[in-house]
């Protein structure tokens, strides 16, 4: 029996960005980059572990918007085009770098990596990466959980709160059931944002657990006996787990975190910016703006601007060392906690954005691979577990009412509610109010009316994505986020007016449906009370 458990939770999410009306669309690249740099590298890690017979348990939350984009044929085909261009560019790079051995070696590395991505994407998983995650879930290696339907931030759904949260949860659970063939065990609340009472919507859908940030547990009522080292039960029986800070800091922190090691790859030196304009032009944005290609030749090197060539072997050694260090610290942490937990084994919950692994921290997937193997073979103190596994261990858990919290900067809602984005809520709240009113007025609608109401629900959900407020706060791609909000509001309000007037324009609905085709089976009645 291990003395404690480590629950690594990777939260994979991107907002729904799909523009069939354009051949190239800058923000669509976020998905393609994440597929190449994060999702496929993680899938390859899992595949390697399975082939080597290494047992493991990880939890992966895949947001419904990401799930939907994985399934979308238009985006699948665009990804293939995207990866083909990278294969071509990296092939040119092999020629170009012939006289610079350290870059030449890296050009080969990228070229092979891109070819492998295309093979995994097209041949192995038939262009839909849900097939990969389902595969590893069916093998009992990962627990795939869901997230709010469009990553709406629950704490700020102040108007028509129950219906608003219920729709985010139910639409997510329905999509999960359709794609993964069962009810999701857990849910990652978008931005870890929890408002007391949200657990009711989870219970209605049969979801067994969710996560909050550390202070969501520590400031809960009554006083939590086990800190964040045990799940608790909300009054309605849904379990809640809190983030462990020590493991978070090890990976996330700018000062102490592993990803800043000088041997690791430098994110900010990309050939899309470094090379001659005419040469990279076919591979950057069609309007001529330089962007990241994903081909990066330097290591972090040091604090200054001087950068040296990336050395994959040295980086790999560093990742192995960091994995060993992480494991050692978990053993110590568990041993230290053991005597303080009564007869219970502690669980350390370590959630990370999946896109940190590979995209930002290039060696992240390698680190995870080393960590999983080391945990399996090099010690017996700590075992990997999912929350679902752990919850089977004990019959009783303390009852706790968690506190309002998020994992955003300062721990509450300031990231999504500040000068740059606070104007959003008056519009999104109004849409919610109108949605609930329309759903109550037109029950059991059919035909065009039903299509209009369903599309209104889609537009509302998409407008609720926390990403738009987040982008406005961080300051890049702001016009896109603003435009998306305006567009969803306009579609929604136009449809609402048509519904009210009883004059529904089919061509308009069709246009909206084609453009924002997410959740094809949505039922607007989720908003009726």
């Amino acid at each position, binding site marked *: 029996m291990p003395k404690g458990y480590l629950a690594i939770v990777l939260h994979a*999410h*991107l907002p729904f960005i799909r523009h069939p*009306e*354009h051949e*190239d669309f*800058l923000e669509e690249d*976020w998905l393609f*980059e994440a597929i190449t740099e994060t999702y496929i590298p993680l899938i390859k890690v899992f595949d390697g572990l399975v082939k080597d017979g290494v047992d493991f348990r990880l939890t992966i939350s895949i947001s419904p918007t990401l799930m939907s984009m994985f399934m979308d044929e238009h985006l699948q085909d665009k990804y293939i085009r995207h990866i083909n261009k990278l294969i071509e560019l990296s092939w040119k790079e092999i*020629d*170009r*770098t012939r*006289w610079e051995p350290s870059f030449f070696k890296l050009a080969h590395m990228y070229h092979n990596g891109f070819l492998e991505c295309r093979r995994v994407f097209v041949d192995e998983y038939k262009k839909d990466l849900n097939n990969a995650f389902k595969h590893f879930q069916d093998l009992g290696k990962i627990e795939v959980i869901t997230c709010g339907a469009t990553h709406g931030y629950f704490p*700020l759904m*102040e108007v028509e709160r129950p219906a608003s949260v219920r729709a985010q949860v139910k639409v997510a659970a329905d999509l999960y059931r359709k794609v993964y063939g069962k009810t999701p065990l857990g849910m990652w609340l978008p*931005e870890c944002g929890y408002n007391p009472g949200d657990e009711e919507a989870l219970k209605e859908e049969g979801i067994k657990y969710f996560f909050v940030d550390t*202070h969501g*547990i520590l*400031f809960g*009522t*009554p*006083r939590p*006996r086990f*800190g964040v*080292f045990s799940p608790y039960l909300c009054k309605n029986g849904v379990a809640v787990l809190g983030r462990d*800070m*020590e493991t*978070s800091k090890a990976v*996330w*922190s*700018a000062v102490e975190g592993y*990803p800043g090691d000088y041997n690791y790859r430098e*994110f*900010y030196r990309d050939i899309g910016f470094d090379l001659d304009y005419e*040469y990279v032009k076919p591979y950057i944005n069609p309007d001529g703006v330089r962007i*990241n290609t994903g081909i990066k030749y330097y290591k972090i090197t040091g604090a200054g*601007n001087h950068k040296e060539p990336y050395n994959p072997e040295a980086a790999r050694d560093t990742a192995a060392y960091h994995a060993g260090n992480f494991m050692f610290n978990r053993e110590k942490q568990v041993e230290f906690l053991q005597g*303080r937990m009564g007869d219970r084994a502690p669980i350390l919950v370590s959630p990370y954005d999946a*896109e*940190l692994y590979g995209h*930002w921290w290039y060696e992240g997937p390698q680190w995870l691979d080393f960590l999983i193997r080391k945990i399996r073979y090099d010690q017996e103190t700590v075992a990997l577990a999912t929350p679902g596994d752990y919850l089977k261990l004990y019959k009783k858990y*303390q009852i706790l009412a968690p*506190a*309002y919290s*998020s*994992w955003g900067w*300062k721990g509450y809602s*300031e990231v999504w509610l500040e000068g740059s984005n*606070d104007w959003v809520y*008056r519009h999104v*709240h*109004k849409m919610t109010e109108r949605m609930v009113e329309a759903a109550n007025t037109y029950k059991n609608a059919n035909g065009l009316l039903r299509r209009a109401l369903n599309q209104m629900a889609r537009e509302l959900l998409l407008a609720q994505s926390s990403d738009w407020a*987040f*982008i406005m706060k*961080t300051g890049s*791609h702001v016009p*896109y986020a603003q*435009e998306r909000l*305006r567009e969803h*509001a*306009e579609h929604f309000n136009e449809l609402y007016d048509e519904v009210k007037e009883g004059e529904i324009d089919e061509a308009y609905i069709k246009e909206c449906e084609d453009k924002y085709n997410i959740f094809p089976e949505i039922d607007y009645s989720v908003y009726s009370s």
Partner: protein
Amino acid sequence: MTKGASLKMRERKQFRFPPGYGDNKIVSMARDPWWIFAYWEIRHDKEEDIVRSIKGDGDVPAKSILRVYDVTDVNFNGKNAHSYFDIDLKGPANSWYINVGSPDRSWIVDIGVVTKKGNFYLLARSNTAKTPRYGMSDKLDAEWMMPEEDYWKMFGLSGGFGIGKGSLEVREAFKKRLEEQISSAQVSSGASFYRKAQERKFWLVVNTELIVYGATEPDAKLTVQGKEIKLRQDGTFTLRFALPDGRQVIPVEAVSSDGTDRRKIAPIVTRKTE
């Protein structure tokens, strides 16, 4: 708008929000344990009604205010709040951040007009916003009890501060931790991360590349530094190399398709950086 934006969209028009919803209401939301945010839309005719009734009461409107009530555990009827405070609205504001300063309390915000005589006329009343609990609960669970200091130890361990600290220190450390909160969801590529790109001051970068180009019979076999090169249909070729410091010998060899003719030319290039 990004340059890549939809032409179709552009041709049509800019998307836009309705200028207003014709509502007369105020909504409040808790931002964190100490602040709430309120936004409102007030109908002009309602405002005129209020002014009219103020005048009817023989009074004069003095200023617009927000009146913020602490209604914790109260079924609020407009008069039974624990306390309230006013905020003078200046300029054409339609939202406000309100420093209520107290976690775990419930708040209602009225928007209205105060008269010269000091009477308050209500324009709209908000929903109740509850600020989050902050700090460890005083409520103990009889079934899961332990000594006070042990709770603080668990608290410190959970927060990643270790065990040796007293409750005061842990409280301080926790506050600091939230302020430095290190992770929030990132949009891939769209946002900054744990480590930002180095800010450069004045700077200069110079690199060199060499272009080697030429032509031979379209069906000939061509190698450059021993590596076979694919010719274009007209027999021309172009190669581009990053050119580091040092000397490069670049033998280019063409062999005719029947293997009988060959030509070899070997340019030598030296780069030296001073």
